[in-house]
């Protein structure tokens, strides 16, 4: 369970808060997606969840963030990291090792995972990301997409109860992006993991997320089920978030009185709705 109460954070050198008066509750086992224009405070919100704010980036913090009941301000970063696995936006700076296998082992070794479980965990995470063949490759020789998969796999191997990912599919092609989201969705179902993912691909978020959070100017503008949030397509467009085209089309038909059904979040549901309208 993640509970954020009236959270405001201003970086020490900044003139204005990066996030302001943010309150959000994410139940365990939820797949939450965060979207918003550049500079809206998405990454700072993820830093607040994994404890990087305020432990690594100093500044003024008001309000509270609780992960499984632990206040992130009062809990040491190392203890928080046992619960929260993080994949940063800058993948290259996340790598500690030069070879994929060593990168996978790093966290497992640090957390004292019994040595007889390590091989199984490494294999499972690499297989899950479809990169078993990269195990002995040098990280410098990998493509951007492969590096992203390695970074995600190295965190999945730790089996955290909360997984925070900042734009994990930024360098992935559409098929790989979908497979990453499918995998994350599987983790939510199979392990009850809470997944919080910052992403610009709204079509993917609306398909996989249980909770869609839209941020603008450091504040939360919407936080609801994707169907509810996407009903506000005009307001989303105003703040710089494009809805999937099928959603925009169906919302316009609804505004013109031609469609009265639920919000369509993907092409197949829009097709079905259009067939019904045409009939």
């Amino acid at each position, binding site marked *: 369970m993640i509970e954020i109460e009236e959270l405001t954070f201003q970086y020490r050198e900044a003139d204005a808060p990066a996030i302001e008066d943010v309150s959000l509750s994410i139940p365990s086992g939820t797949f939450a997606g965060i979207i918003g224009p550049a500079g809206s405070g998405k990454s700072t919100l993820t830093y607040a969840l994994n404890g990087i704010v305020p432990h690594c980036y100093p500044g003024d913090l008001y309000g509270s963030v609780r992960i499984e009941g632990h206040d992130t301000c009062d809990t040491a970063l190392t203890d928080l990291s046992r619960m929260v696995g993080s994949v940063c936006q800058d993948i290259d700076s996340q790598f500690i090792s030069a070879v994929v296998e060593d990168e996978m082992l790093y966290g497992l070794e*640090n957390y004292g995972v019994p040595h007889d479980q390590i091989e199984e965990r490494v294999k499972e995470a690499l297989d899950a990301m479809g990169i078993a063949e990269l195990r*002995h490759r040098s990280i410098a020789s990998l493509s951007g997409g492969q590096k992203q998969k390695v970074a995600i796999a190295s965190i999945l191997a730790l089996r955290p109860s909360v997984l925070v990912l900042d734009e994990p599919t930024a360098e992935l092609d559409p098929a790989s992006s979908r497979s990453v989201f499918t995998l994350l969705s599987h983790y939510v179902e199979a392990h009850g993991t809470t997944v919080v993912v910052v992403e610009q691909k709204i079509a993917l978020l609306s398909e996989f997320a249980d909770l869609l959070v839209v941020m603008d100017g450091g504040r939360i503008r919407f936080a609801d089920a994707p169907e509810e949030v996407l009903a506000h397509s005009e307001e989303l467009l105003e703040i710089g978030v494009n809805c999937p085209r099928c959603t925009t089309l169906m919302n316009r038909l609804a505004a013109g009185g031609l469609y009265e059904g639920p919000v369509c979040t993907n092409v197949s549901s829009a097709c079905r709705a259009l067939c019904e309208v045409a009939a």
Partner: protein
Amino acid sequence: MDGFLEYVPGDSLLHRLNPVTKIAFAMLFAIACFCTSDLAFLCLMLVFGIAMAASCSMLRQTAGLMKAVFAFSLVLAVLLLLTTPKGDLLIDLPWGYVGTGSVLAAIATVMRLEAAAIPLFLTFYVTKMTDLSNSFVKVLHVPYRYAFTFASTVHFIPVFMNDMKGIMEAQTARGIEFDRGGIVKKIRLMMPLCVPLLVSSVRKTNSSAIAAEVRGFALRTRESGYKNYPMTRTDWGVLVLGVAILAIAISLNFL
């Protein structure tokens, strides 16, 4: 894969040796080179170094290193030539002379630096930095934070060099002529790029430190390491060879 100081996978004897053995042998080898000025011995050491490079298919990289070391050692050699008047007179100078002994000392300096650099250089190419730091922790009981600092320093050298290359390519695409002119012009053009490189380096180092911390860096102990680095008979044999080389180098001074 074969960038500067980046690990090159392989299955040669050098690859298979214990990382502690590799670094210890490289150090003994380098110290031995500095313990004697015997040209025949230094020549043998140089040949031995090149043979080691050939055994792990690193001749191309070693040739690059030797070229760089040669340029550096040439400066020292010229200084020695001009400031060490020894042996029979060859050239008279206002402050002394260049003698046959000066020439031999200059040649010895070049050969010494070339020979001493090769095994140390090879160690970084045939050893994963993680193995090097983990073996320091497991075998030598070095505290992990110091081993990690050392490994990270070496790990970041190629990263920053790639960053510099990227910045230079971006500047070249905007019309800065890095590909023309001499070394002085290149250095003058590179000076303003040091600031963005420094900024990005500090940022990367900070991000990397945070990434390590959120993956339990502070929890690591000597027992944490998954891999073990046992010393085999070959390792002990190589260490004995290193000590023998050092002993021969020292004893040459008394012959």
